[in-house]
């Protein structure tokens, strides 16, 4: 039998194939179904070992699969019991706990016991050869964990450490792992999440998706969704289109497109103020920035509201100090500097720089940071300062944090992520961070002392004052020109209530609810 392909036949065949493909039942049908949601994550998972996790994408899964002694209450910075039936601070350096009965690890790794707690936390201490896990600093105050029974134990601290509750116990570094699983899985432990929490990591197809399914053995409140699929989507625009096309149910979006997305049928948009800290500052070892008058002049010249309007589309609030609103140590009465070009010029004149000067502003090559730099460039041109913008890719930009490279900076725009304890924020500005993350090489012995004092002060009132005093010293230096604490914009399907902690980065998958 022979078959001759005619032009008419070819066209008919092509049309039939097109109809077949377009007519598939999945066309124009939302991906999400009852009991299942699809969330967009910015990047793929990297490392599911709580002690060596790479970032928030990992920790969100680690916290969904695992349990700590305590966990954050949904959407707040307060904690509540998780695996612990009882936990109390007996003294400044002693915490006692009793585990709930019947907690089981997935994968057949047996009961969760106090031995597992000891193993999980003591991994953060330096090993015999001096090597440390990535998040070792979270448990820097840990001396030892004493097992007093199958389900009871004592956490001994080397010194008082109020931060240990929010930074370690309630966060990713407080997740209890199975000692048996860790020893059995070896190097595969970092890609296999074993826990006793509300979800099981059913599968992780690298660069495509991961799937969390409800853990049938979890003894706490069952999660609202039986399945959560995480899809790594790097590009914000793709994520927006996928939301609008109904392929995903939840995503962080670019604030600039919030109105467009909100206008889409069946989608809601929510803005969440974050606790990051974004600022511009000089390398104060470099001339002329070693002169406080020059720093004050620039602070008077920079128009932060204009930056927020131009670079952030007005979607964030202005910051006036290091600690964000809502955090312990937030400085409510921090000075609000108005733009004053005459005052700025007078200060430069006084510093002998009435004719202006040239400098370089280093930024990350993101749209927002480059727009910020452009506004600053225009602002400073008005007082005779010629700013060259150096926009670097993440690899080159973050290289300023190694090998003392920050000594080559002049002006720099920095954005750091915040945590719920104020001491996490102040640590990057101490003298011993010069050469690593104190890029401005700002050194103040009183600030260093306040930071150390804040770490061990158990009284919250006194701690609050310590951190406010520390921020006053930063303000006096005029070396930090605060822009914003950031805000995250999320879009999601009607009928979904996402569970997000107040930093905007940490998503509590088990707290995602149906509206």
């Amino acid at each position, binding site marked *: 039998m022979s078959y001759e392909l005619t032009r008419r036949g070819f066209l008919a065949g092509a049309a039939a194939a097109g109809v077949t493909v377009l007519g598939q039942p999945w*066309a124009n049908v939302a991906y999400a179904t009852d009991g299942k949601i699809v969330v967009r994550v910015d990047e793929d998972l990297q490392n599911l070992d709580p002690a060596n996790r790479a970032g928030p994408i990992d920790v969100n899964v680690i916290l969904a699969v695992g349990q700590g002694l305590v966990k954050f209450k949904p959407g707040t910075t307060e904690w509540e019991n998780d695996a612990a039936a009882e936990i109390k601070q007996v003294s400044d350096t002693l915490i006692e706990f009793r585990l709930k009965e019947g907690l089981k690890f997935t994968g057949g790794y047996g009961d969760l016991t106090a031995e597992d707690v000891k193993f999980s936390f003591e991994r953060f201490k330096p090993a015999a050869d001096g*090597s440390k*896990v990535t998040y070792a600093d979270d448990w820097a105050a840990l001396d030892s964990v004493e097992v007093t029974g199958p389900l009871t134990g004592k956490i001994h601290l080397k010194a008082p450490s109020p931060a240990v509750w929010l930074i370690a116990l309630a966060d990713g570094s407080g997740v209890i792992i199975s000692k048996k699983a860790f020893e059995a899985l070896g190097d595969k432990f*970092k890609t296999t999440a074993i826990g006793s929490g509300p979800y099981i990591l059913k599968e992780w197809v690298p660069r495509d998706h991961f799937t969390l399914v409800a853990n049938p053995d979890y003894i706490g409140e069952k999660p609202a969704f039986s399945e959560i699929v995480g899809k790594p989507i*790097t590009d914000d625009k793709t994520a927006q289109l996928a939301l609008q*096309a109904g392929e995903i149910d939840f995503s962080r979006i670019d604030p600039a497109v919030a109105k467009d997305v909100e206008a889409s049928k069946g989608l809601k948009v929510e803005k969440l103020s974050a606790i990051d800290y974004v600022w511009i500052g000089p390398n104060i070892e470099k001339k002329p920035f070693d002169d406080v008058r020059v720093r004050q002049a620039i602070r008077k010249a920079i128009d932060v509201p204009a930056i927020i309007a131009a670079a952030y589309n007005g979607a964030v609030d202005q910051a006036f100090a290091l600690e964000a609103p809502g955090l312990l140590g937030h400085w409510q009465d921090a000075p609000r500097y108005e733009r004053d070009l005459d005052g700025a010029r007078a200060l430069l004149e006084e510093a002998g720089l009435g004719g202006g000067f040239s400098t370089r502003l280093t930024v990350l090559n993101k749209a927002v940071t480059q727009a910020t730099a452009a506004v600053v460039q225009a602002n400073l041109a008005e007082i005779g300062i010629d700013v060259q913008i150096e926009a670097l890719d993440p*690899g080159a930009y973050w290289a300023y944090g190694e*090998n003392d490279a920050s000594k080559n900076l002049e002006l720099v725009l920095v954005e750091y992520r915040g945590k719920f304890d104020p001491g996490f924020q102040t640590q990057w500005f101490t003298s011993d961070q010069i050469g690593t993350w104190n890029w401005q090489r700002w050194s103040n012995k009183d600030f260093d002392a306040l930071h150390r004092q804040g770490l061990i002060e158990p009284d919250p009132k006194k701690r609050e004052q310590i951190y406010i005093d520390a921020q006053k010293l930063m303000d006096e230096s005029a070396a930090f020109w605060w822009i914003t604490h950031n805000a995250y914009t999320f879009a999601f399907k009607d009928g979904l209530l996402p569970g997000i902690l107040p930093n905007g980065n940490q998503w509590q998958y088990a707290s995602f609810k149906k509206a």
Partner: protein
Amino acid sequence: MNGFWSKGSLARYGASRLATAVLVLVGSIALLCSLTLIVPGDPARILLGARATPELVETFRQQMGLNLPLYERVFVFFRHALQGDLGTDVISGRSVTDMVMAALPNTIVLALSAIGLAVLLGIPIGCYAAVRPGSLLDQVLAVFSVSLVATPSYVVAILLLYFFSVRLGWFPVLGAGEPGHFLDQLHHLILPMVALAVGWVGYIARLVRSSLLEVLSEPFIRTARAYGQPERRVVMKYALKLACIPTVAILGVGIGELMGGAVFVEVIFNRPGLGSLVFDAIRVRNYPVVQGCILIIVAIFVVTNLLVDFAYAWLDPRVRETLGRARSGGGA
């Protein structure tokens, strides 16, 4: 068969091209390794983040081979690559060979289907324009072709997604489709394929037009017309075959270009292909993955060009003749 295709000459020609191909592969990887010395940013520090301890950073540097001298890194890489081992992803601990092999089919299917579509549309457009030179249709097609060439694939990708996925809901936005499910994969392929092909449609159309115009002015075409051959037959049977030869030549380059262009398209459509794999790896300076991907991309580029060279010599009698003369010492 022409003398050029005798066993000896074919072997010599193949061996010389193969040697060049090996040099290109070694050179590209050596260049890549030396770039890691110049490009700012310690990969280990970037991968591990601000909180990584110096010990962990050092361990990662060793795992990535960054502590070895340049020549040793290139040597070690090729020694392992020859055994099918492209190294280990230092982040996940997965085999780079497995990662590349999982991503490669998606990119090859995308690149080949895009070039196929470009040929399928570009040649007829070029023919129509060439047989009516200077006409309104030719001018319209010229503007159309140049517009296609000038439009970046990522712009086309976003527009296609907006109209066909968001507004009409005909095609999916994300991914490459369910593995083993042909129709689903085809459904996911159509928009990225069109986005990637669009620029090449215009390019091939312009190339075929100019080439066909040149061939149509050749004496043998005049002779064919003088013999009373119908114009349609003259163009399709005699002229187009020769006019397509330059198109074949650029297809080798085209495949390489499309593998590069696939980066944007794969990122926008979230396709887990080689382009997006290398993009993600470069962002975090994951050099073992970058090296593995680059080796495969360069190898595909080199092999494709090799095949095109052979095809070119096979298709064009003038090339065969030139090479045959060169083999016999230049006398004719």
